[in-house]
């Protein structure tokens, strides 16, 4: 007879709620008539995310002392909860965006195919959010891999969901192939670590490594290296970034907005947890590895962005560079670094989501991919979105308009505190390079005459929900510049869950 372990259902509820909502949304695909489907499933999605946020907040308050649940498979602690709150908040914003910018809106003109896959889209969104939520709480190598595949597969489908577009299909396929390679690398690394230590639990691995003196063991070191490579694929850090520009460009912009913000949160928080929990004795190895990956990401991301014309590609390379900044915090492996990464993710995810949402709005009114050329005059035509965009990109650049400024300051402080002044200099120089393309976006929006453009026609669409989502992102991004102390306190409590 197999004994089932006691399950803390409440602890798992932030994962179970969105997956439950996902099932309901799928049922709606067959049960709800087409005319009402978009409203009903969007409501279910919003309700699912709101409930999940509420539960995650409750768990954050209730889990001052973190511990594992479900037979050591999942961490119930504040690091998990805070990460989940950020992910679900982005999910809620994506839901708002998707109501007016459902991938495949190009088909809307054809009434017989209109809203064909609305329910499926929301179901996938909820399922991928649940997968990421499970991912940040993973406590052993099995749940880690399971959750990774869980949210990756849903993302592959989401990228390809606008199947009338070649770009979308190509993005889905490319992401599938490269992502599977990354996942396989991670799995192979996990297998080596398991082989060397005989355990899959993160804390067990740390104990085994220190008690059996496996710090320099070949299997462990190669295993760590492969795991780092696999995780770096997910956080789109260079040199594992090759898929990022193509997928971000090809995927429906709504999906890109979701992916760029949420995947990074999940991947970075989980990576921080794995490295500090499972391999504390090898910090001299992975610390350097991440410092080098951060440097490469900063160099490649920023320099490649300089020559791009397509705004989604610019933002994709900027996402690679931003991963570099956050990896600076990760590479220190310190409590200050953990706080820095956690704090950085809050304005970053708001700005990443918001900037892609604005691109989605422009894309819809033009009907063609958004480039620096056809962005001309956007700032004057849509004043609110224009101002929001310059806040977001200046925030990415680390100018003191959004919390991105404080985030950069924190990662630099973490690096300096760790004794890596050179990494501060690298970050500072990278910021300088990045200014060029971030300013190019602002310049395109405000400083070029829009007359030379043939706009698709008509007045700009009324996008109340998109504006609401962008407004919320703007409030978070700007608010995190002023309310630093409360957010840092949250991040500090979350970081206290890690063995730092």
């Amino acid at each position: 007879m197999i004994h089932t372990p006691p399950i803390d259902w409440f602890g798992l509820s932030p994962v179970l709620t969105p997956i439950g909502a996902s099932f309901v949304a799928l049922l709606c695909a067959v049960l709800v008539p087409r005319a009402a489907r978009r409203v009903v499933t969007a409501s279910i999605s919003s309700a699912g995310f709101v409930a999940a946020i509420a539960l995650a907040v409750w768990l954050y308050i209730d889990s001052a002392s973190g511990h594992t649940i479900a037979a050591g498979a999942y961490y119930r602690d504040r690091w998990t909860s805070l990460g989940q709150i950020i992910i679900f908040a982005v999910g809620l914003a994506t839901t708002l965006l998707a109501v007016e910018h459902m991938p495949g809106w190009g088909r809307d003109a054809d009434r017989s195919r209109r809203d064909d896959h609305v329910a499926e889209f929301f179901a996938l969104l909820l399922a991928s959010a649940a997968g990421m939520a499970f991912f940040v709480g993973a406590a052993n190598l099995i749940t880690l891999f399971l959750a990774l595949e869980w949210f990756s597969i849903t993302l592959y489908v989401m990228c390809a969901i606008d199947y009338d577009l070649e770009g979308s299909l190509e993005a889905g396929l490319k992401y599938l192939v490269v992502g599977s390679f990354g996942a396989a690398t991670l799995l192979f690394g996990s297998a080596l670590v398991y082989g060397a230590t005989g355990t899959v639990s993160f804390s067990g691995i740390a104990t085994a490594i220190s008690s059996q003196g496996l710090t320099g063991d070949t299997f462990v070191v190669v295993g760590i290296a492969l795991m780092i490579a696999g995780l770096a694929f997910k956080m789109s850090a260079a040199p594992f970034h090759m898929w990022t520009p193509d997928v971000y460009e090809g995927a429906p912009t709504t999906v890109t907005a979701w992916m760029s913000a949420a995947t990074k949160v999940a991947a970075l928080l989980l990576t921080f947890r794995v490295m500090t929990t499972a391999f504390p004795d090898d910090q001299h190895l992975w610390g350097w590895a991440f410092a080098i990956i951060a440097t490469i990401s900063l160099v490649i991301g920023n320099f490649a962005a300089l020559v791009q014309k397509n705004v989604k590609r610019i933002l994709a390379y900027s996402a690679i560079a931003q991963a570099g900044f956050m990896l600076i915090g990760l590479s220190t492996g310190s409590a200050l670094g953990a706080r820095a990464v956690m704090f950085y993710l809050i304005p970053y995810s708001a700005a990443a989501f918001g900037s892609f949402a604005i691109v989605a709005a422009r894309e819809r009114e033009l009907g063609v991919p958004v480039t620096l050329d056809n962005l001309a005059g956007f700032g004057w035509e849509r004043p609110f979105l224009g101002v929001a965009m310059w806040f977001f990109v200046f925030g990415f650049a680390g100018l003191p308009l959004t919390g991105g400024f404080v985030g950069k300051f924190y990662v630099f402080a973490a690096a300096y505190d760790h004794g890596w002044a050179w990494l501060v200099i690298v970050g500072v120089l990278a910021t300088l390079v990045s200014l060029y393309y971030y300013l190019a976006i602002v310049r395109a929006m405000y400083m070029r005459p829009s007359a030379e453009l043939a706009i698709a026609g008509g007045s700009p669409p009324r996008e109340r929900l998109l504006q609401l989502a962008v407004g919320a992102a703007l409030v978070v991004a700007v608010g995190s510049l002023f309310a630093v102390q409360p957010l840092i306190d949250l991040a500090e409590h979350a970081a206290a869950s890690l063995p730092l």
Partner: protein
Amino acid sequence: MNASYLTSILIWLPIAGAVLIWFLPLSRYATGALALLVSFAEVGLWIKQAAHFDFSQPGLQMSERANWFGDLGVSYHVGVYGFSLWLVGLTVVGMAACTAYGFWVGRDRPRAYFGLMLLLTGATVGVFEAQDLLLFYAFFEAMLIPLYILIGVWGGARRMEATMKFVIYTMAGSLLMLAAIVAYGLQAGTFDLVDGPTSTSRWLFLGFMLAFVIKAPLFPFHGWLPDAYRQAPPEVAAVLSGVIAKAGLYGMLRIAITKFPEPTSFYRTAVLALAAASLIYGSLLAFRAADFRGVVAYSSLAQSGLIALGLFAGTDLGFAGAVLQMVAHGLISISLFLIAGAVERRTTTGEFRLLGGMARGRPALATLLMMVGVISLAVPGSASFAGEFLILAGVFQRAWWWAAIGAGAIVLAAMYMLRLISAVLHEARGSTVSDAALDLRPGELALVVPLVCGLLFLSAWPAAISNHSFFGPSPTAAVKSGFK
């Protein structure tokens, strides 16, 4: 001090005004009027602040402190010293004049324009009042954002290159300053400027100084200056040279010299040499410049050099003269750029070969340009004569040859300023000067005359600033004590 709320209000009132202007769908006229109202309210608040300031009291006054993020020791800490009080005054007066100029000219897209001008006001006041390094840095950078858009949208034909150069240059300096701030703050355990200890690190000193010499600017870091000053709208160029450049010089005084005494004396000769080079080189370029704004732009470079000479002389007279000269040159430079704008509006150009003979039939323009020009070339009895004399006397105490170089530059100043006056006002009538080009209108007079009155007041009583910038009889002792 019970009036400490004024310190914060001076920073946040214009920023709140900017947000208000962006949200309220006001008409063109109402937008400008609201912005102007806020700018004048700023001047009024500053007068109140100055009235409450106790010059007989040492240390920081009207300070406010609130936690920003405590784990790294960063706080929202603002307050004023004597010298910062004068620079805040220069900022609010200058920005009010420039905002009024924008109103008078009727800039396009008024809501964006006036919002950005107010944002710039708030950020610049913030630079002069911040007493926490990170807060200082945040305001220092925040100045750049409205400037970038103001030049990029409302600037001249070659504004794109100008803005790009300007932003890349200044950010290169200030990002290295950020690295220096991180290092200084973590070493000291606090980012507070008042509590923070002095440091002997030469690297950190250089990190800070690079940002300041680019902002000021000093030779050879002035590459952004000619383009930015020529391509910016005249009132923005006025702000740039009159006010923003002073932020770099203020940074030298408040941070580089005060917090790094040992590196300051180590690099003193090098900085003095750069300052002297800026003074000579800027003056020569101003003498060769072919247009109105070019002369003013390069003379600003020269004046930055002169002020830096005073600051790094490290003597009582040098410090007092530098603060006086910062304010005097700020007022001069704003007036000159606004007059340049008025000339350009009438003739479509600032080039000397197309100008000339404007004095005939335009007495107000001629009188004002003449007065500002004469004050600027440091005629004895003028405010800038007092400032330059103090600076030269101060640097003479360091070594006589610095003063000799400086005195030579004053001769050059007379040359380029008289050349400017004669090329615009006298000589044969230029091809672009028509009879339709009117004299200064009452609205324009209302902008420039108060600035000139300020200059005349300082000419009459330069000690208002030079004796009221540092507590006690000896500015050097005040600097050495960290203004405690």
